[in-house]
Each structure stands twice: as structure tokens, then as C-alpha cells.
């Protein structure tokens, strides 16, 4: 037991050191690395519903977009009139001082974590009674509806979009912005990982699994499934909100349907990444997101115009050959490495029967 712990320690400290030096080692790739952190957070928290609880949610993008708009709105609204900021063709130019910028984004991220969590609780209460496909379709609608609604609210820029505050000009180092957002996203990633890891060792996960495997039985066992389902979704919403807030600041421009409530891309990607890596595992979404990001960044520019076809092929390949994801595939191939004991006699007996 101790030996495993020690190996884990080496692995984790290695990864953290890698995470800390990465922006200096691969300075030109900071933005991509930031995206990677955010993608992993999204995949990992999606996995809580899709993988552990068996509720395939396409609605997590709602919390992501909400977090994005909230962070930007708070960051602007704390110091300047929001309506004038977003008014297109407005002649006034507002500039955040360095202190204002960081205070704003700090408070903004806080709000971006809390509000989506509450929203998830409220919506969850209303719709988590739905199961299976009905839940999936319902959440799909959530993201789309949110995008359309946000596109009509003038104070957050409506169809014009919302330009988030530019990084303070007093910081002249052009690398500073990239580093700031990288470390912010890395911090959120570490928090999310520690949190999910904690859940993996808790009774809470077993309850989620019970809900996935047979909700009626779980309920019959005396588990208040509704309560746990809602709490599970709220946990995801917390991190999705944070991830959205960071992305808003990084991208610098929020568009209602293309950036914030981007169900067509981010919303699908987070599901895809979790499935690619293997849903229902701790490392699956991490590996899935990493591979997916590399596939996307590395290959897409070489097949200009065909990247979505390639993505389609990827999805088909995943579904046909790796229905359980990479981790699931590995687990099937090398079960002993996952701590599963196989009775050789039993296996042979089964082969003979076939």
C-alpha cells in the first residue's frame, strides 16, 4: 500500500512540476496549454455526470457560458457602467488599471463559480427527474436556449458580442498575459483534479455509480437519489463556471452562441474527450482531453477545410473500436494492471465453452 502511495507521489509531483515549468519551456504554446487545462477540467467534470452518474449532459456548456459572461460583467461592472461598455459604437473608452483588472477578475471568477452552482441546483431540481435520452435532449436545449437569450440581452452586448477588458497596459511584458491565464487555468485544473480524486475515494462516488447502474434499486436501498444527482451536477457547474470565466478573459471577446454557449463545439468536445479517454475513470478524461487537443492542434491545420470530416471519422473510430474509451480498452487488455484478478482456470473454462 505504501509503495503505491509513493509511486503516486512521484507521478503527481512530476506532473505538477511539468505543469509549472511548461509555460517557460514551451513559451510559444502557452495559449494552447491554457486551452488544454480548461479542456481537461471540462472533461473531468463532465465525467462526474456522464461517466459516474450515467446522466449524459449536454448542458454543462450552460454553466461555462454563464461563468464567462458573469466574470466579464463583474470585471467591468465593478468599475464602469456596464451598459456603456458594451454599447457598440460607444465613443467612450474605459481602461482598467492594473489593480482594477485583477480585483475585477478575482471577484468575477468567484461569482462565476457560485452563481452557476446555484443555477445548476435550481435547474437540476427541475429536470434531473428525467432519465436517459430525455435528460440528454433536455440539457441540449438548455445550452441552445441560453445562447439565444444571451444574444438578445443588450447590457451584455447582445448580438454584438462583449469585448472583455484588455490586459492592463501597464504590464509591458507581452508574455505576462499568457502566463497569468495559464497559471490561473492550471490552478483550477489542480483544484478540480484534487476534488474529483477525493470524490473517487468517497462514498459519494459509490452512490453516483449506484444511480448509474440501477437508479430504481438505488432508491429502493434508501438512497435519496435526487439529492445526490443535484449535488453531483452542482459540483460540475462550479468548475465549468470557473473554466468559462478564464476562457472569456483569455479569448477577449464573448459571442453569445459561438464563444460562450458554444454547445456545437465545447459542449460536444467535453463529451467526446471524456468518452475518448474512457468515461467513469479518473484518468480517462485527462488522457482523452490531452489526446484530443493534440489531435486537433497538430492535425487540423494540415487538413484545412476537412477537419470536421476528420473529427467525424475520429468519433466513428472511438465508438466502434473503443466504446469504453482508451482506459476501458487498456483495462480490457491488461486487466491485472488495473488491479483486477483473473482466475486463469475460469478464463480457460470459458474459452473451452466457446
Amino acid at each position, binding site marked *: 500500500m505504501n509503495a503505491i502511495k509513493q509511486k503516486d507521489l512521484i507521478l503527481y509531483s512530476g506532473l505538477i512540476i511539468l505543469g509549472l515549468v511548461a509555460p517557460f519551456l*514551451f513559451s510559444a504554446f*502557452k495559449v494552447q496549454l491554457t486551452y488544454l487545462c480548461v479542456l481537461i477540467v471540462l472533461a473531468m467534470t463532465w465525467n462526474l455526470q456522464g461517466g459516474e452518474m450515467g446522466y449524459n449532459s449536454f448542458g454543462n456548456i450552460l454553466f461555462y457560458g454563464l461563468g464567462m459572461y458573469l466574470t466579464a460583467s463583474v470585471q467591468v461592472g465593478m468599475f464602469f457602467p456596464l451598459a456603456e461598455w458594451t454599447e457598440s459604437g460607444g465613443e467612450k473608452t474605459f481602461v482598467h488599471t492594473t489593480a482594477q483588472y485583477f480585483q475585477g477578475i478575482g471577484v468575477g471568477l468567484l461569482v462565476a463559480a457560485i452563481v452557476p452552482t446555484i443555477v445548476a441546483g435550481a435547474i437540476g431540481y427541475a429536470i434531473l427527474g428525467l432519465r436517459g435520452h430525455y435528460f440528454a435532449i433536455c440539457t441540449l436545449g438548455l445550452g441552445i436556449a441560453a445562447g439565444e437569450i444571451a444574444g438578445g440581452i443588450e447590457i451584455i452586448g447582445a448580438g454584438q458580442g462583449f469585448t472583455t477588458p*484588455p490586459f492592463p497596459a501597464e504590464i509591458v511584458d507581452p508574455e505576462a498575459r499568457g502566463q497569468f491565464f495559464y497559471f490561473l487555468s492550471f490552478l483550477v485544473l489542480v483544484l478540480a483534479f484534487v476534488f474529483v480524486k477525493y470524490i473517487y475515494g468517497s462514498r459519494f462516488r459509490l452512490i453516483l455509480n449506484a444511480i448509474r447502474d440501477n437508479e430504481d434499486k438505488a432508491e429502493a436501498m434508501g438512497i435519496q437519489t435526487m439529492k445526490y444527482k443535484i449535488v453531483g451536477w452542482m459540483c460540475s457547474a462550479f468548475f465549468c463556471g470557473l473554466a468559462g470565466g478564464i476562457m472569456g478573459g483569455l479569448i477577449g471577446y464573448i459571442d453569445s452562441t459561438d*464563444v460562450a454557449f458554444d454547445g456545437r463545439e465545447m459542449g460536444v468536445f467535453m463529451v467526446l474527450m471524456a468518452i475518448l479517454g474512457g468515461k467513469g475513470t479518473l484518468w480517462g478524461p485527462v488522457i482523452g482531453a490531452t489526446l484530443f487537443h493534440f489531435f486537433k492542434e497538430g492535425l487540423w491545420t494540415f487538413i484545412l477545410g476537412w477537419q470536421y470530416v476528420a473529427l467525424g471519422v475520429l468519433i466513428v473510430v472511438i465508438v466502434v473500436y473503443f466504446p469504453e474509451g482508451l482506459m476501458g480498452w487498456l483495462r480490457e487488455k491488461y486487466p491485472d494492471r488495473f488491479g483486477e484478478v483473473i482466475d486463469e482456470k475460469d478464463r480457460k473454462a470459458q474459452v473451452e465453452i466457446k
Partner: protein
Amino acid sequence: MNKLVKLFTIFISAITLTIASISSSFAKVEGEYIVLGSAISLTGKYSSNGVHTQNGYNMAVDRINKMGGVNVGGKSYKFEIIYYDDESNPKRAAQLAERLIKQDGVHYMLGPYSSGLTKAIAPVTEKYKIPMVEANGASRSLFTKGYKYLFAVLSPANQYLEVAIDLAVEKNGGKPVRIAQAFEQDAFSQDVRLGILDAAKRTGSEIIIDDKLPKELNDMAATLAKVKATKPDVLVVSGHTKGALTAIRQISEMKVDVPMLAMTHCDAAKLSKQHGKNSEYALCASQWHKNLSYKDKFFGGGKKYDKDFKKEFGYAPPYQSAESSAALLVFKDAFERANSFDRDKVRDALKTTDMQTFYGNIKFGPGGQNVAKPMILFQVRCKGDSCENKVVAPTKWASDKFYHPIPKWSERS
């Protein structure tokens, strides 16, 4: 567990190696090439206009390279463009701009298609002090942000259809008109809307329908039903290529009678070809038309550009292509005047640009917008079955008279 850790270590080191190996970078000027970068919409909702833009860029690169290239410091250089596909998505565009600058080492940028994407890229180019000449971001809010490295060869979006309202008022005997309008929910179309609001205020006109259209635009029947019921004097529609196509298709299907129909993107949508007589009398805002008499030594005039473009790409150039070609002429001119590849010198040279191209005069205002070129309006007119875009305003360029009001569908053959 042991093996798993090993597996993971291998995985991580493989990734590290991959990153390290692909981080080779281009230089801003490589050998005899000046490398420009552009994220362009080759897929997604702006893909057709993205391709128009790319064709415009490519056409100008070929032409300039063939005709002696760019002379800097007594040496001749050629243009080369690195393209990425931004998938019509601002998030992706911002990321690709970062990539072009940081990883590909691009020091000069060409704009993407559409205002929204330009808005996403401008903060990035501004941060790294990369001069960007853009030809397809017309939103007014681009020019009020105090950007120093952004230069647009086109007139701002709010000017697109303002003239149309003035024209309607004039035809109405100087009396205010009743306006129905429907705009896509994107930065460009919403800016066109602001222009209409200004014009309505100025002329005392009343806006009786003010609808928003979704981004993936393929139906506006609800708006048209209202138009049928309320009978406005002018119907204004803007929503890029899809908006123009949808409007004409449904207006002709539903036989909506309206005295004046003003739109954007008619030429990019090839309305006169695709919808023929159904699109007749539509009034369209355009940055450029081949009949204008501007000239330069690379493309000759508009008519010659039209001919060469048709030969090269097999269709008549919409203004999106023309303005994109003009962007490269601006860059060439700035490089030669700066006589240097220093980014700030090139920027200063861009700032003092004052030239004529086949596309129009180009001179940048304090916000980076082109202040030397008016918008034009053309109207689709048909002879028999062949339809053409005829310039009707401003009067200086007009080849035909503005036909008003549009005859009722029951009277049209």
C-alpha cells in the same frame, strides 16, 4: 499500478518531445518572402465569404509577385500567406492569431472574414504590436477601441444602408417612412442596424418591425408575415450571404409586396444568378462595384479585375474579394514607403497611407477605418432572364436610375 505509472511517464515524455519538435518557427521575412498570416473561415457559417476573401488575397499575392514584388531596401521580395481555418468561430480565430504570431513567427497579419472574428483577433495583434490590414471587419465598434495596429480598407458597417433610408425618404416626397427591419444577431448586422436607427432618427422615420434573426439563418417567415400585415415602406434585411438568400427566397415564395427592399451581401450571395428575376429590384449596399472608375497599375480598373478574377476562379468577384485584394496593395505600398521590415515603421507607413486602388481610395482615419471611400448602392435589374447589378447611388457613379416602387408580385411576369 507500476506499469500504469510507466505507461504514463512514456505518454508524457512523448508529448513533450512532440511539442519540442514542432516548435520550429518561420521568420517574418524568410529569404525573399514576406510572410503574412491570416485566419480565415474555410468551414462554418462564413465559409463562402471566407473563400471569397481568400481568393481575393491569393489573386493579389500572385499579381504583385508576378509584377516585381515588393521593393524594400533595393531588394525585391515576394508575398506569402500562411492560412489557418478559423471555422467561423471567434474563439478559434483568437487562438489561431496567437499561433500565427507566436509559433509561426508572423509579423504582419491580414484580417479574417466578418466583424466578429476581427473583434476577436484585434486584441491579440494589438498585444503583440502586429500591424493588421483587414478587409472584412466593418463593425463600428472596431474603430472606437483605440486600436493602433488595426487598419481597415472598408467603410464602417453603419454606413451600409443609411443611404437607402435617405433614398426612401426622398422617394416619399421628403416625408418620413415606415421601416421594417430584420437583422442577424452578429456584430456586423447589428451595426448595420445602428446605422438604420440613426438614419430613422435623422429623418423622423418610424421603425415598425425590428426583428432579430438567428445566426444559422434559414427562415424569416415570421418577419415576412408581419411585413405582409403592416405594409411598411421599406424592408431592410442584413445577415451576410445566408440572410440575402433567405430573404429573396421567402419573399418570392410568400409574394410579399414591399415598395423597397434594402439588403447587404447581394453580390456575395450571387443573387442575380441564383434567384434571377425573383431578386429583381433588390437594393444592395456594396463596398465596391466593377463599374466604378478607380484605377491602379496592378489590376487596372474594376472591369479588368472582374475579368481576371472570373478567369482565375470562375465566378464574378463580390466586393469581399475586391477589398481583400486591396488589402495587399496597401501592405505593399506601406512596406515600400517604410523601406523597412520594422513593425513600427510599417505601422507608421500604414497610418499615412493615401492611395488609389482599383477598389477605391484608401486613407485611414484615426480609428483605422477607411475614410476616403463612399459606400455604393446597386439594384438588381433584369433584361429577359439575365439579371445584373446596376449602380444607382451615389449619383456620381450611377449607371442606371433607381427603380421605385417595386411592382407588386401580381403585376410581375
